[in-house]
């Protein structure tokens, strides 16, 4: 079995990364997972978090703000709504993301007063964003 696989990270506006990797850590909606070559085909949604791609030339980290990942035996594509390389991430970016999540939470509270589902989702998104900030220690 090959010990590397193709990794693509694309956002709607541009393609951010495309290279061979040994393993990728993905912040899945139901928990983090690490995908390695030969993984079972999986499609999972992402929560905001840090995505770590370990290639032969070292690891690269990206901050993703949701989207989904498609994993199969030969490769992995991550379609992120917004993705920023970790070393380019700044407090301003994060604040923007958090403000966004907060606005969504507020509007969810407005629109879905009697349905807890969407409000909880939005609250979780907001919590994820804040946790992300703590995690990368900005």
């Amino acid at each position: 079995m090959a010990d590397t696989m193709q990794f693509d990270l694309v956002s709607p506006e541009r393609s951010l990364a495309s290279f061979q990797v040994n393993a990728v850590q993905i912040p899945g909606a139901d928990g983090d997972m690490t995908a390695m070559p030969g993984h079972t085909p999986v499609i999972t949604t992402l929560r905001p978090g840090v995505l770590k791609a370990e290639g032969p030339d070292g690891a690269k980290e990206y901050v993703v703000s949701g989207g989904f990942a498609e994993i199969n035996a030969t490769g992995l594509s991550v379609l992120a709504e917004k993705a920023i390389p970790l070393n380019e991430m700044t407090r301003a970016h994060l604040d923007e993301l958090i403000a966004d999540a907060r606005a969504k939470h507020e509007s969810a509270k407005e629109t879905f007063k009697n349905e807890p589902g969407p409000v909880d989702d939005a609250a979780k998104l907001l919590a994820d964003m804040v946790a992300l900030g703590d995690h990368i220690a900005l």
Partner: protein
Amino acid sequence: MPSLKDLKLRIESVKSTRKITKAMQMVAAAKLRRAQEAAEEARPYAERFNAVMAGLAASVGGSDSAPKLLSGTGKDDVHLLVVMTAERGLCGGFNSNIARLARQKIEELKTKGKTVKILTVGKKGRDALKRDHASLFVGHVDLSEVKRLGYADAQGIARKILDRFDAGEFDVATIFYSKFVNVVTQIPTAQQVIPAAFEAADGEEAGASTLYDYEPGEEEILADLLPRGVATQVFSALLENGASEQGARMSAMDNATRNAGEMIDKLTIQYNRSRQAVITNELIEIISGAEAL
């Protein structure tokens, strides 16, 4: 017969028009390159997205519990037409082609007895449709302040569409935009976004052949992805439109520049002829004056 002075002024004015159209053409060419790059960079995302969605839709689509965004509301009485055009004119038939396609669709739907609602993106489309169909307007998105189209703009438009859908204001949504083929060809296109219609993946990738695990469940993923799908489609339409607009403007301005050149040549010939005629006249006057003595 215009006087020499008139002709001279005329030539000068056509010359400065040519300068302007030439400059606009070059600006459009530069912007076109950028717009094309943006469209190209967005393509991988849209393609993968559609491939995944097609696979998902195929496996979930048949069930009764499929989300409304995919299966529709079960009716097609009220249509929302999202007409996307440019914010500026002077780009040949670009805006009017899109408006014409939209107008045809409106007439067609009206004769079938459907209700039509219009949401416009871009000032020119609003102006073109307002004359005949002002009562059908439900909204307008202004992008004139936007320097560089971002995904956020598409999300904003998608949000407007989805909110109306959630409120049950329409059953079918179609977006109108212009597909960019090359600088001289842009095809006005109508594309249905709700209920979502995904083109089946091409034979070689055939999403259905690989069986995926879904985490969380298929339906949750689908419910999460469908609204994004609308935004993605709107975004690629916006980008195609952007490239088409610049392409159309470029060829329109190229034509205008060439026409101005021809006009200048014609006027110059006319100017020279009249100048010669004046000289000849003067000579005749002098000679006949001399002979009379």
